[in-house]
């Protein structure tokens, strides 16, 4: 019953959500389920942080290689959570200070490293070995040049090409036409896949969310 009851819960809650769209009189049921979902989601976030805490405690207790860094992680997690929960999270609090001067620069800088890696990849890996790759690169060139002011200025200096505005080429034809068509085809395919997986979950065919064991 450790798997059967959860599967039944999945099916019932999912079917209620679908039926409510077709029988609006039952929407009170969906309202109740929304508020329950909201509360449980909050606990899900705490579960994530708690799991991180346990994994790192385990690494520290076993003195795994680099366990000193895990101590840093734990201290920062406990300090931030503690200051936030007990001291408040609004501007002016210590928690907000950590958000402004620790979390924000770390988060922003971590992702800004990608700029360097994309440039390195552009230099080393993006070769037009086939017609398709060449087409991809050519489109990328037009978009990269057309979406920046300097590119527009350069384009206007090139004879014949300057008969049409590059921003119009990029916006109306590449993005609004070819890109829209390609992205729509991908979206339709992916959406059918989502519905298929959702139905499999509701019908109990897909059970990976239950995890292993009994």
């Amino acid at each position, binding site marked *: 019953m450790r798997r059967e009851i959860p599967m039944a819960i999945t099916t019932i809650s999912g079917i209620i959500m679908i039926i409510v769209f077709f029988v609006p009189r039952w929407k009170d049921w969906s309202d109740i389920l929304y508020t329950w979902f909201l509360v449980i989601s909050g606990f899900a976030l705490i579960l994530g942080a708690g799991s991180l805490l346990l994994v790192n405690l385990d690494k520290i207790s076993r003195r795994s290689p680099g366990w000193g860094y895990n101590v840093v992680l734990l201290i920062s997690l406990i300090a931030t959570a503690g200051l936030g929960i007990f001291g408040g999270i609004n501007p002016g609090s210590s928690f907000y200070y950590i958000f402004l001067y620790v979390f924000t620069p770390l988060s922003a800088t971590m992702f800004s490293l990608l700029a360097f890696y994309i*440039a390195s990849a552009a230099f080393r890996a993006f070769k037009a070995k086939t017609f398709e790759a060449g087409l991809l690169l050519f489109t990328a060139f037009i978009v990269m040049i057309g979406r920046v002011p300097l590119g527009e200025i350069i384009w206007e200096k090139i004879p014949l090409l300057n008969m049409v505005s590059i921003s119009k080429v990029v916006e109306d034809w590449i993005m609004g036409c070819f890109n829209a068509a390609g992205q729509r085809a991908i979206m339709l395919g992916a959406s059918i896949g989502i519905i298929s997986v959702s139905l499999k979950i509701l019908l109990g065919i897909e059970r990976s969310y239950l995890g292993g064991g009994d």
Partner: protein
Amino acid sequence: MTDNTETKTGAKANIIDILKNVDRRYIFLFILLAVIIPILFPLNLPIGTSAPVRNIYDFVEDLPEGSVILMSFDYSPSTEIELDPAAEALLRHAFRKKHKVIGIALWPMGLSQAQRVFAKIEKEFPEVEQGKDYVNLGYKAGGSVILMGLKEGFAKIFPTDDKDTPIADLPLMNKVKDISNVDLVVSLSAGVPGIKEYVAIVNTQFGKPVAGACTAVSAPEMYTFLDSGQLLGLMGGLKGAAEYEQLLQKPGNASLGMDAQSIVHIVIVLFIIFSNVVYFMDEHQKKQAALK
């Protein structure tokens, strides 16, 4: 003669090998300089505007005074350079037109991003008052489920604002009970949940106009919604935010960043062209060597 040709060919092969195996740290340095130099010595390049951004501007401009705009801060500090300028420009425009603004967040970090943006723009409009002209209802976990619940009323999902003031004590929220009282919804989104959820629920289910500001990574996907009319406008990436700033005639960080963006784009295009030239030279050499 033969020695010279072989020496020349050998030297050429070495150059190609060197160019193929350039230490990536030199590339990093190039990119760093390409960003730093235009920031220190701005070029002040003119920034044109595009239809997706103009659509949002025109819609906000044409809304009657006192209209309600819901802004959803669905991003984290990692993408604040692209979305903070868009949020600030939109908020500035809304306050200029004396519209009312409700801020919510579907991402945890969106709460603090919203607090920062509201605090910054509020200083430019001393007559604007929190609780009366704008509210920040904070963050809620749940994505699509939260949006579905907005039809029943804000009070059920957001019982308090970000400062724990009960929603009943907020004058603005006494007039705005649920999503039907909102005139425009704008999602500032860096991923999921974000614009797609707003399009699927707020536009498709509730019939409300939805506009978006997203990172440049997500922008291409949003063009399908622009084409289908499910999205009324889109500010894509730093350029989109810069365009809105130009329309407002108040350049900010987005406009300042476009100079560096221009230079780096040209540098990367040249990198790709250069590497392809080296690649084809290498292939040609290999074919020549195979023939011999």
